[in-house]
């Protein structure tokens, strides 16, 4: 049931609302555009007595992450956040946090890495940390940013998982452009999200040592354990989403949103906010008799290999909209192309679609309807000719 109050707020403000309903205990803040609004909202809620939390203004992103690491290990529910070079400044802390199994939540309103100083959205910043053992995914709208906050706490704090989460949204597009957000009632949140309980917190009444050096032959077993836990997170996602949909009356797919799946021969693979424009473009194209599908992933980590393969196997050609850079990577595009290629490789050859990449939405560039029409055209052409003429297109630099 869609209960609650409707608000017209942007993504960072939406997460702040969710954090308040999650009764978060410790918040660590450091300013960097475009995520700062989240912390401005939270500091005000704390100052006004609406949220009983420790609001710690840190000296850096590295300290931000360290503060929530210590707090989470003590048994507190935590929130922090950053963007762009702030995300990379804190890099050292990511693996200790996930390895120590502290389910902190970090909100990222993404931003292009320097140089040059560029405030615009690009997914490259936090994607750098995709191998650090964190749950990671993007919201398309402020509403989804709100919802993901609760979903990620529930998933990350589940004792079968106990992993930190990157709760990401496209900088400016989602973080700054308000949308309608239904803020549910406290009782609904309480029904969905149990209080945070860490199995072995730092507590002088029952002492544990957190993180001694290990024997070298325990290393591989530790890494296997971390891999298994990330897999476990994947298994639990449908359970969490189904509960969420039940309590809040939403209709989220677990891993993948597959829009206009039937009839289409080609599919655009998208992560993040631009999927919204893609959806309109697809509708417009459909009216003209061109059928294109959308596959939007809700989680980058854990990557839903089998599910993505199954969805993409319906199509003759798949175009990955990269929205990030990975210079010199296999396929010469971004980080998603090799991941999708590896995913498709599990399919039998006759079910394996052709794959191409579109470098778009870089350094904050808007992806316009026309850009998507261009991508659709290239995909349809490839499907018709059963051949890819060019594996990577840099949108805005291509001749029609």
């Amino acid at each position, binding site marked *: 049931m869609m209960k609650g109050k409707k608000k017209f707020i942007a993504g960072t403000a939406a997460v702040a609302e969710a954090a308040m309903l999650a009764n978060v205990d410790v918040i660590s803040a450091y300013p960097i555009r475009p995520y700062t609004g989240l912390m401005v909202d939270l500091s005000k809620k704390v100052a006004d007595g609406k949220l009983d939390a420790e609001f710690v203004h840190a000296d850096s992103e590295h300290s931000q992450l360290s503060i929530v690491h210590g707090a989470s290990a003590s048994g507190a529910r935590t929130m922090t956040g950053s963007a762009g070079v702030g995300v990379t400044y804190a890099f050292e802390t990511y693996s200790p946090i996930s390895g*120590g199994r*502290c389910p902190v939540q970090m909100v990222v309103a993404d931003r292009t890495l320097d140089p040059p100083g560029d405030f615009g959205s690009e997914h490259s910043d936090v994607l750098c940390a995709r191998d650090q053992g964190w749950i990671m995914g993007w919201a398309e709208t402020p509403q989804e940013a709100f919802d993901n906050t609760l979903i990620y706490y529930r998933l990350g704090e589940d004792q079968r998982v106990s992993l930190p989460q990157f709760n990401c949204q496209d900088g400016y597009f989602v973080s700054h452009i308000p949308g309608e957000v239904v803020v549910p009632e406290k009782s609904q949140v309480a029904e969905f999200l149990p209080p945070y309980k860490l199995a072995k917190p730092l507590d002088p009444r029952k002492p*544990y040592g957190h993180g001694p050096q290990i024997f070298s032959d325990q290393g591989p077993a530790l890494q296997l354990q971390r891999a298994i836990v990330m897999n476990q997170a994947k298994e639990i996602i449908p359970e969490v989403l189904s509960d969420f949909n039940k309590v809040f009356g939403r209709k989220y797919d677990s891993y993948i949103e597959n829009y206009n799946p039937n009839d289409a021969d080609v599919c655009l693979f998208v992560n993040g906010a631009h999927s919204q424009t893609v959806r309109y473009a697809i509708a417009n194209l459909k009216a003209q008799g061109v059928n294109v599908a959308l596959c939007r992933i809700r989680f980058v980590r854990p990557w839903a290999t089998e599910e993505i393969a199954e969805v993409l196997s319906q199509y003759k050609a798949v175009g990955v909209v990269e929205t990030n850079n990975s210079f010199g990577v296999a396929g010469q595009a971004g980080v998603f192309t090799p991941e999708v290629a590896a995913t498709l490789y599990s399919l039998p050859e006759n079910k394996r679609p052709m794959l191409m990449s579109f470098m778009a939405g870089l350094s904050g560039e808007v992806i316009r309807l026309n850009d998507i029409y261009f991508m659709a055209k290239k995909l349809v052409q490839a499907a018709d000719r059963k051949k890819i003429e060019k594996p990577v297109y840099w949108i805005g630099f291509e001749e029609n």
Partner: protein
Amino acid sequence: MSLPNISKEKQLPEGCIVDSPTTEQDHMTTGGWRVLRSVIDYGKCTKCKTCWISCPDAAIKVDENGDVNINLKYCKGCGICASVCPVGAIARIPELDFEDVSVYRELPF
């Protein structure tokens, strides 16, 4: 979480979180490092406990009579106790002169 096909010793507690000890950490018995053994002359000892307070390894124990005893299971033989003893009551004698073996380990740790 228990890992399949991995011996128990190789398995780590989740998040690398381990139990704290209560009186000693016997994963790391260090008596085997000792080159010189400290021997207390109880005739000279004044029970001032200077050696006890100065031991980095907490390897000197005070018993109910106030006597100090060296715990050879952990004593690394640094000799601080002998250096700080105000009455020279602690001698340092080569470990190989003693027949008894206080710690014998398969591996250094």
